[in-house]
């Protein structure tokens, strides 16, 4: 199977079979990562630039490792946003990179649509590593991969996403991906965290966590963005922790086989209690491990690779 696209900008509009192709490829790459020498020559001679306008350790390192495991030349740039008049514009920065003959641009930017914008202007394969509050497709794909690993498939699974949905690119990408794979999604948050019309995008909406989490297969906890404190979204983190924090008592309402995910970085004691974050039901570190294989799969498929080839390595 091949992927008939050049860019990965989001999961909205990506079909079930495309997602399954990516997850299958990630399966193969995960095996490679377990080998003694976890490296293949697949992308030798290709160049990937990780252009991050927002600080990130986890995602950036995960992409770098994925590129290096595939033998691509990998360069990371921690750039500053140029919303000021003096700075170079995003398009100028990226046109310069394009002129240096790169093959992949992995971009994280604070503006929603930044990856779409660049993909329409340059002749380079663009992977969205997070654009504002819009999408973060590789994070959602690794979440889907982790769920599939546990449950075999996602059809009929009940997934509760808890937290600041309005400002979460992880939530949006997961919503599209989960729906494509047949899961049922409940969004649970205080009304100030619910973006308008979210119920029209195919999610159940709840403002009562005890109720929403009852009998769920997966609780996906989102990070509270403390930098948004000035926006009057919450009276206090204390009250948020009391009403929406995932503590042991609430986690116990999940199905017996249920588990807990968090895209990180965590605020222990706010959205998730320490004993839950580090408890037996948490798969948070599995998510991180799976991230590398998943990103290898995406790079490989976007460069025109086929899954069977990958499995042959």
């Amino acid at each position, binding site marked *: 199977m091949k992927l008939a696209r050049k860019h990965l900008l989001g999961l909205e509009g990506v079909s079930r079979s495309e997602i399954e192709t990516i997850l299958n490829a990630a399966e193969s790459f995960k095996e490679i990562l377990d080998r003694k020498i976890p490296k293949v020559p697949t992308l030798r001679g290709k160049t990937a630039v990780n252009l991050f306008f927002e600080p990130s350790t986890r995602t950036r390192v995960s992409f770098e490792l994925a590129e290096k495991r595939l033998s691509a030349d990998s360069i990371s740039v921690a750039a500053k946003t140029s919303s000021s008049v003096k700075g170079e*514009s995003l398009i100028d920065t990226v046109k310069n990179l394009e002129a240096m003959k790169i093959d992949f641009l992995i971009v994280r930017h604070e503006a929603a649509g930044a990856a779409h914008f660049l993909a329409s202007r340059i002749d380079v394969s663009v992977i969205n590593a997070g654009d504002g509050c819009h999408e973060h497709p590789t994070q959602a794909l690794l979440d889907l991969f982790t769920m599939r690993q546990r449950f075999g498939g996602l059809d009929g699974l009940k997934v509760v996403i808890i937290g600041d949905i309005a400002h979460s690119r992880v939530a949006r990408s997961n919503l599209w991906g989960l729906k494509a794979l047949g899961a049922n999604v409940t969004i649970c948050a205080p009304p100030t965290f619910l973006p308008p019309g979210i119920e029209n995008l195919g999610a159940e909406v709840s403002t009562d966590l005890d109720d929403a989490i009852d009998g769920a297969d997966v609780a996906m906890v989102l990070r509270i963005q403390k930098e948004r404190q000035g926006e009057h979204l919450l009276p206090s983190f204390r009250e948020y922790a009391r009403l929406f924090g995932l503590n042991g008592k609430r986690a116990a309402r999940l199905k017996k086989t249920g588990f807990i995910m968090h895209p990180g970085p965590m605020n222990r004691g706010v959205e998730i209690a320490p004993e839950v974050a580090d408890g037996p039901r948490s798969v948070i570190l599995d998510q991180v491990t799976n991230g590398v294989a998943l990103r290898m799969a995406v790079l490989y498929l976007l460069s025109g690779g086929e899954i069977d080839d990958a499995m042959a390595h």
Partner: protein
Amino acid sequence: MRWLIRGAHLLDPGSGLDRTGDLLVEEGVIARIGGEIRVDGEVEEVAGKGLVVTPSFLDLHVHLREPGKEYAETIESGVLGALAGGFGGLVCMPNTTPPLDTNASVRFVVEEARRCSPVDVMPAGAITKGRSGEKLAEFGDLVDGGAVAVTDDGDTVADSGLMRRALEYARQFDLPVFTHPEDKNLSRGGVIHEGVVSTRLGLKGIPAAAEEIGIARDIRLAELTGGRLHVQHVSTARGAQLVRHAKEKGLRVTAETAPHYLALTDESLAGYDTNRKMNPPLRPAADRDALREALREGVLDAVATDHAPHAPHEKDREFDAAPFGVLGLETALAVLITHLVRPGHLSLETLVERMTCGPASVIGVAGGRIVEGAEARLTVFDPEASWVVDPNRFRSPSRNTPFAGERLRGEVRTVVIGGRVIAVGPRCGDNPDFPAPLSS
């Protein structure tokens, strides 16, 4: 100069003219209107079959960018664009650098415009000094300089007490106060309409309520003061409803909307096209439909373009970083014919009314009339002709139109103004000397 158009559709809602016939212009004056005019001697004759002759259009909402941002638009490029769109008059906004908040700055615009073309450029002065929302500008001086209205467009006068005084103080000059209604505490940081589309795109939304609260406040202040209020760029159904109620009460309230709100919806933002980013933002279809209805009824007095040039380098950015505003002058008529008249949402006659005597009554000027003895200020267009919008042919150095590449019907052909007959329209982009006088 003598110019005769034969067998054209002569349409002037302001004077009740709606017939097929001939029209003769002599020395810049409408000499005769009739079934078949006989003339002796030298005359430039035009076959008018299939063409419509109306008073030249008046645009209440144009940003000329000079002084300050001449790379995006100059007064000269702006008035040439106006001619190309069939406009013989326009009201320009004071948010230049420096702003039009003094007699001298208003006078500069009027004089520079006169130097460039016969288009009647009527500035709106600022409500507050420096457009800073703090102290009233000297309305008397602005009026003496040629201002026909005051506005802090681009910003709302946030201080309700100050807005009240502006409406009161303007009364002595019978000066309309134009309001850009927006509660910034609700809209801050927003870039598109708040709704399911903003949720999907992850962009910060501007709730319709931000605009409607502004409209409601200013209508109430118009009632309190007896001042003349004009509501700029109404974009929501509830906003139009507020204006409707104000008019039913007999308040001195008028309102405009722009072609893009009548033609487009927020659904079209899926590709993050910054040439569809404006403030107020494109709204859902229900709002667009309500605006069409309000325009038909006359709740909205005028279509005004909110022509807002931004240079390509300013618009070719990530969505959040691009400035608000789109071009309007050169596409307005065709967009409205294509999206409103042809599908049957609005009659051609009503459209012409909302682009001629409708806006003229907002600022209390006579506007062009097609009557014998009147100064000839005419626009001639072919309502059937089709053309494709090519931004590279615009008179403006800016390219920020949401209609690029769209095939539109309705093409402006000629503007008769100031004793000149000027060939205009989209196809004149080929002519480097535009506007070339055919005769004078």
